């Protein structure tokens, strides 16, 4: 996995975008550093992400927890359907929220 960083400034907010390249199989140090630094908002761009391992999912969930505790925002952008479906099946509320989607777990079986 490699990443590509873009920086943007919207009003006073400092927003960083990091693109996941290939497989997300472990924590991404660069994103961890951004969250620990002065960035207000981190956008994780999944457009070139091809696979997420269990460890990747666990790290994303933990990352969102950390972001929440330091009042920072982490958003997932350009999530391809294969990855979006992984989020859906995982039933992890925070992942769906970060991806801008609707929670899977709230929906019961319906006809």
């Amino acid at each position: 996995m490699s990443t590509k960083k873009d920086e943007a400034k919207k009003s006073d907010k400092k927003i960083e975008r990091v693109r996941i390249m290939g497989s997300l199989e472990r924590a991404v140090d660069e994103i961890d550093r951004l969250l620990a630094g002065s960035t207000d908002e981190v956008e994780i761009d999944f457009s070139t992400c091809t696979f997420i391992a269990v460890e990747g999912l666990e790290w994303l969930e933990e990352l969102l927890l950390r972001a929440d505790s330091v009042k920072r925002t982490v958003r997932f952008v350009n999530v391809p359907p294969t990855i979006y479906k992984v989020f859906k099946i995982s039933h992890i509320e925070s992942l769906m929220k970060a991806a801008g989607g609707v929670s899977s777990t709230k929906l019961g079986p319906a006809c």
Partner: protein
Amino acid sequence: MTAISKEQEQILTERAHSLTRQARLSAAVFSQYSQAQVDRIVKAMTTCAIDNAARLARMAHEETRMGVTEDKVLKNLVASEFLYAQIKDKRTVGVIKELPELNMVEVAEPIGVILGLAPVTNPTSTVIFKSICCAKTRNSIIFSPHLMAAESSNLAAKLIYEAALEAGAPKGFITWVDKSSRLRRLSEILFAHPEVDLIFATGGTQMVRAAYSSGKPALGVGAGNTPVYVHKTANVPSAAMEIIISKTFDNGTECPSEQTLIIDREIVDELISEFRRCGCYICDEAEVEKIADAVIDARTGGMNYRLVGQPANLILEQAGIKVDRHIKMILCPLKGELRLHRLAVEKLMPVLGYVAVDSVEEGINRALDINYGGGTGHTAGIFCEDDGVIERYADAINAGRIIVNSPSSIGGLGGVYNHLNTTLSFGCGTGGGNITTDNVGIKNLLNYKRVPRRKNYVISFQTTKNIYSNPGSIEHLKSLKCKNAFVISSRSASRRGHLSMVKESLPEGCHVDVFSDIGTEPDFPTIQRAVQAMRLSKPDAIIALGGGSVLDAAKIIRLFYDYPELNVQELAVNFLDFHHRMVEFPKDMRTQLVAIPTTSGTGSEVTPFAVLKDGFRKVSMIDECMIPDVAIIDAQFTKSLPREITSDTAFDALTHALESLVSTFSSDYTDGLALEALRLIFEALPETLKNPGSILHRHKLHNAATLAGMAIGNASVGVNHALAHALGARFDIPHGRANGVFLLSTIEYNAQIPSKFVSIPCYPLWVADRKYARAAQFIGLKEEAQAVDSRPQVENPHFAMEGSRGQYDGMVLALRRAVYDLGRLAGQPLSVSELGIDPADYQAALPELVETAFSDMSVRSNPRYCLAPEILQLFQAAYAPRVRP
């Protein structure tokens, strides 16, 4: 059972959350795997299982003290090697099946998180089997082992999981409940856990029942009680050996294994001798009771679980029967009422009951006694060389697998003795309280997404094969191959000279009989009289001479003359789609039918329709076989038509053209015919009315009716006909005239965006408005600017959706004005009131009219789905005298 404290319960709940979370994340990640990745993992797991088959078998035997280690090795190999051979090439990712003939594919979707139960009788083989199946189908699995076998089950799960992980499987896709005194409770929590998608239950009845009671989808298996019928044609020594192999396999722990033999009396001695020779113990009556005392739990009436999977010698010892040699299996003759015998139940140990029977019937009945005595839906066996007996047996017995000439236990596992799917889980269908009778496997661990492409709708076109048109074409009759003609007509045919025209044109020497009793609305008694007359005449050709009623009647008369066994009520059954209707008409007609229309309206000479009056309603018969063989379109027969009939029938043809044009079944073929028919009617009707003797214009009008007939014969009609049929039948209004009074309303109605679209595959786009516009353009009308300029033009606001004014409104208005003008020119009634129907009578008849019209098949091909209230509005809107739109 010790009580569990709140704290312990909390710990168990957290453990359940942890297990399911692992499985859930793994299932999510698994969804990304390709077939190649999955197959690599499955191969690694199988190799690991084969490598560890002996180790795991030993451990299972040591832990459970059940069965036979050597047989458990075999079970582990069946669950790995044999399973792999069956599934390795199966597709379980993406498109897994293509059904080109149905224009459909099936796409696999994993189940998700599965809770797998592993039984004490097969603790390692079941885990191997379920693990490999789950990997192949990209599901994650949490194992809940049996407490008495948890060590071996969990070791099997761990070894297989590690091999899978090494091959790239997602972390945590196999997990298990550790052995502890809380194992049962943790399993119960998992049963109800929201993150478990499916329970794959193999185990004792209680656990299976608990799985089904959880409210989750469950694949459970029922209890077995396998009857095996040994028919007199069986190879006795072979049958004996196979039964011994089967019943002693793992000391009888396999639930498909034989429980009671039903043996034909002719071979019972030979078979029992063979069992004895091969090392089995045959009990006498007193010993049977001792065996029953030992192996049956007196409290429950079921087997004594302490003896499950134990060797025969131990069971004999427990029963107090002394034997000083090795015994493979114990055979107990079951005397008295079989259904009530204590040993006529499942015994997962090498104890086998048997009875002798005197016939196949008795054999099957005794097998049914066992089958329905606790093993419904599970397994049965038969040793027999007579296919007929095997078929009768299979038909009678309720079992998911009926094993022929093989050991029922190993045979039931599948893949070894037969081509059944390899399994350790035997579905028993509803007989056993299960959802499937399958040998449960990968097939049952997938969701199947069907992707049906739209059906290719085949459009066919049928009409009369030989059509002779032009004034004087009646001369063609001379070349008709016919020695005995039967003319069907109305009484007026003779008066108008039509009958003599026909008779004179028939081949020389042709005998002619005439039935001229067809009235304006023929009913079935009339048809029967005509058929009776034909039976006496025995014609080889029928000549239908007259208007629509005569032609329709002739079609039905021919049908019942050629096929007297047909039933009119059955033939007239309504249908939604011609291609799927339940009625079957004959394929070929035996007697040729020549249709000579004497009016220019129905087009019946070229259609597959025939209408018959049945009380206050009209029934339609529709089939290709009704189409006449020859049509003679000779306008000389219409020369003397009164003005009123000329106009009525022309409006019938006009309605045909307009309705077939916008019909949901219309096609390029019928559109051309409908448009040309329209053009001819608008051109020829005014001229004919002006100059009734003009054969040229009569001829054009005659052709128009036939062309419109061809159009409706293939595209059908619409709501206008439904309304007209109802009105005509109720108030005795001639068909063409009844059609005319609704035409302005139905064009307006159909040209508006429907409140409900018609769902029919051959009509992918609603185009009625543009088709009316095309008709207007084709007959040379100009767009009416007024409609575009002043928007609220809809006369009946009920027909239009709000804001539904369209780009074709101007042309549709032009068409309606043209129809209005033509009607007025012809003196044709254009509203119900103009027919002289009393408003109170009409009002009173409305409910019946609506119901009749709604049930009329004509509405099925209307481009706008006709809702009952809309049909009522159409009837109401058609009453007031018309003004020019």
